[in-house]
């Protein structure tokens, strides 16, 4: 429970979103398509969704 709170924090969806974004980035990076834009956009989207949920 302590490590869950410590690493995952208040919103587990943020951690899951980041994991998925890392996976997509790694997949794209293995192709010829540029992948640098995935993580910044994913972070912004995940953060906004988490904030909106908290502000309801």
């Amino acid at each position, binding site marked *: 429970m302590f490590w869950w709170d410590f690493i995952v924090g208040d919103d587990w969806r943020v951690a899951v979103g980041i994991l998925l974004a890392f996976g997509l980035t790694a997949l794209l990076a293995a192709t010829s398509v540029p992948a*640098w834009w995935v993580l910044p956009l994913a972070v912004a989207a995940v953060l906004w969704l*988490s*904030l909106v949920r908290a502000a309801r």
Partner: protein
Amino acid sequence: MLSAFLASAVETVEALTIVLAIGLTRGWRSALAGAGVATLALAAVVAALGPALTVIPIEVLRLVVGGLLLVFGLQWLRKAILRASGWKAIRDEDAVFARERAEAATAPDEERAGVDWYGFTISFKAVLLEGLEVAFIVLTFGSTQGSIPLAAVGAAAAVILVVLAGILVREPLSRVPENTLAFAVGVMLTTFGIFWGAEGAGVDWPGGDAALPGVLAFVLLVSFAFVAMLRRQRVAVA
């Protein structure tokens, strides 16, 4: 080093509030013993894990460190944005101090190993729990930038500065702009988390290391925009 310094400053202010409350209510011996043992435990964590991290291949290290920094950074940033936009109460060190003192005054007396056990354990837990995240930041930043001691010096400098201020004023440091510091820490952790995490996942940033200020500007812009949008939403609801 700056990230470790700022994160350490925020966490030390929070831990100091509790140690002060315990010291003034239950006596300084147990409060300082608890804080001292916790500080030694944190130093042992850094000393033990630091050398282990240096043998991990840099790409793997960047992926793991990037992921951890992102998860930590987004926790800091989320909380700071909610506080800055009025959706979450700003942490009130005076209120925490008063609550801790009231609880300490009514807790039963029990002496173990020559110290007041309640005072020791509360002080120990406060310093250990607040300091653990700083220890991780020191380890992650230090290992990816090749100097754990430098990051540790940054964190230690903040501890010394905040503790000296606490000794001088002998009350909680409620005027420290905690949320501004937390916002800055969140922005930095998130920026480095994106940068190193993407590199670890196999990304080549356009312009190489020169892309880092661009990522920082993006994170800052997004964070300020979210504060403004949530503030407007808050006003509309009120």
